[in-house]
């Protein structure tokens, strides 16, 4: 017997579904509408013609190159680091753990400033590099270093967590069967954690691609050398609106394509796991 006065079941269900639908709609629209607005602001002709603008081309090439290199460095150095970190205990491990997370909460401009103070021409370390004739600030190398600094936590945290949670009986079994630690890692641990590592890599790449504050502080803004796509958008918004818009759209498309590709690749893995 229903308590008198409460809503009938039918209306309650409708209300529940409506509220749920409303929430989903609000979140989806909030994320999708700004991106859609980008596309509506231009025309296909304007977009295609802007693509051949030298600023667009050089920014595109620079961004993709630097982001790929940054990602490669993060993966090649970060994967063994995360593994060793996950498998060992050493004094100060907690500090290292915190440091890995630091770039996530540090404002990018502060990160860029710190890099400049350290590696700049008159920086704490930079002055020695300068004496050897190596300049770091205002070069493409600085772009890569800035990207690595701000984007590496995305991969390191993911890798570290994956390795920590990995069922070590697989590794032990492989060892007793005769596999060296390296062989074990390459043939057992890595294939079984690949899915998570790839998603970490995707986030890292996206963050590196969109990096702005640290780049402009540490690397400066020079077309073809340090003017990545985000910088070109910011500058373009004031002086050449179409170029800025085109690059923004390009960034969205690239991000989208990467996400979809990765999800597609991982789908097959998930099905078989």
């Amino acid at each position, binding site marked *: 017997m229903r*308590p008198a*006065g*409460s*809503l009938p079941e039918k209306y*309650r269900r409708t*209300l529940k579904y409506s509220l749920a639908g*409303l*929430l989903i709609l*609000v979140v989806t629209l*909030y*994320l999708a*509408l*700004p*991106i859609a607005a*980008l596309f509506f602001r231009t025309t296909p002709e304007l977009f295609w013609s802007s693509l051949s603008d030298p600023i667009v081309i050089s920014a595109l090439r620079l961004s993709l190159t630097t982001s790929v290199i940054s990602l490669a460095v993060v993966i090649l150095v970060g994967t063994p680091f995360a593994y060793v970190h996950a498998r060992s205990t050493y004094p100060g491990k907690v500090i290292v753990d915190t440091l890995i997370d630091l770039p996530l909460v540090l*404002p*990018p*401009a*502060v990160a*860029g400033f710190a890099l*400049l*103070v350290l590696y*700049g*021409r*008159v920086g704490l370390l930079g002055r020695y590099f300068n004496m050897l004739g190596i300049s770091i*600030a*205002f070069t493409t190398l600085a772009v890569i270093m800035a990207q690595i600094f701000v984007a590496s936590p995305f991969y390191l945290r993911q890798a570290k967590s994956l390795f920590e949670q990995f069922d070590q009986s697989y590794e032990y079994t492989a060892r007793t069967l005769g596999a060296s630690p390296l062989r074990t890692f390459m043939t057992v641990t890595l294939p079984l954690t690949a899915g998570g590592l790839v998603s970490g890599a*995707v*986030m890292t790449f*996206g963050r*590196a*691609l*969109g990096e*702005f*504050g*640290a780049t*402009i*502080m540490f*690397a*400066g*803004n*020079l077309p073809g050398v*340090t003017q990545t*796509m*985000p*910088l070109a*958008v*910011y*500058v373009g*918004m*004031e*002086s050449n609106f179409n170029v*800025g818009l085109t690059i*923004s759209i390009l*960034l*969205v498309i690239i*991000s*989208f394509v*990467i*996400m979809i590709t990765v999800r597609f690749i991982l789908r097959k893995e998930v099905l078989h796991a």
Partner: protein
Amino acid sequence: MQQTSKAHTLILVSIVCGLLLVSAFIAGCTSSTSQSTTPAPTAAAETTAAPVTNTSAPAAVETTVAPLTTPAPVMATSTPKPVYTYSEGNVVAFTAASLSGVSPKLAADFAKMYPGHSVVFNLDGTQALRTQVQNGAYADVFISASNSYTTELTKGGYFVDGTVKPLTSNYVIVILPANNPANIKSLNDLAKPGVKIAMEDKSVPAGTATVAVLANLAKSTYSQDWNNSVYNNVVTYETSEPGVASKVQLGEVDAGFVYESTYTAGSSKYQAIRIPKSDNYLQTYTIGLLKGSTSKGAAADFETFMLSTVGQQDLKDYGFRPIST
């Protein structure tokens, strides 16, 4: 009462969801984050603080954006606007960043001349301020470093008729780090190979001024080769004038092009090479009242103050040149 408690819960949930919806809408439409770029009287004097604030505008937004939704700079187009609470006697002045050094003095003298009034400066590149106003940011007064942006806003109908007046002017100067690491003694030395120069991007008024200055110098004194060599030595096109100043101050570049006012405000930090008046580019600043202002009285008082002998003297003390009448 027992029977209506379930209905009450449902109604409560709907109200909360509705409020969330509304606030999300408002947040989305006005996109006002309460990140203060520069509270003028305190931080403005530091040229080193300025570049952090200028570039932290897009950057702070960026930290919270997941990289795959929107690239940071798109949100920076409508740069985060400080939210000011305004009262009758308070003036919100959107002001070109090159007035950072003099703004504390101006604020103090304004309050002295008009007891009960006060002014808050929003200091940023004129191009960024223009975009903010165009996107609905609130301001009482607009001080522009560039005639083209002033014209743009006038054409857009943002100014109150008859209130746009020339305010002051500024020349371009070359600054060097205090210890002059590249040993630059003259403008000619700027073309020496290996010299690192910082200048503003052409979207910034100081940038167009510099471009004009370099063209003038090439035509009158040095050659086109000199002009090309100087551009080859440029390592960064900063997005704001304080950005150039800070890179010079840090010693990370050998020379930078800024306004004379910037140099005067921090002369202990730099050496300088003056540019002959005949080749220089006189940047004229204008001041105007905005139609959207709700404290028009106080705003008009502020404009009067800025054009008065007190205001003009303050500007002169900080390296600005009086408007040639």
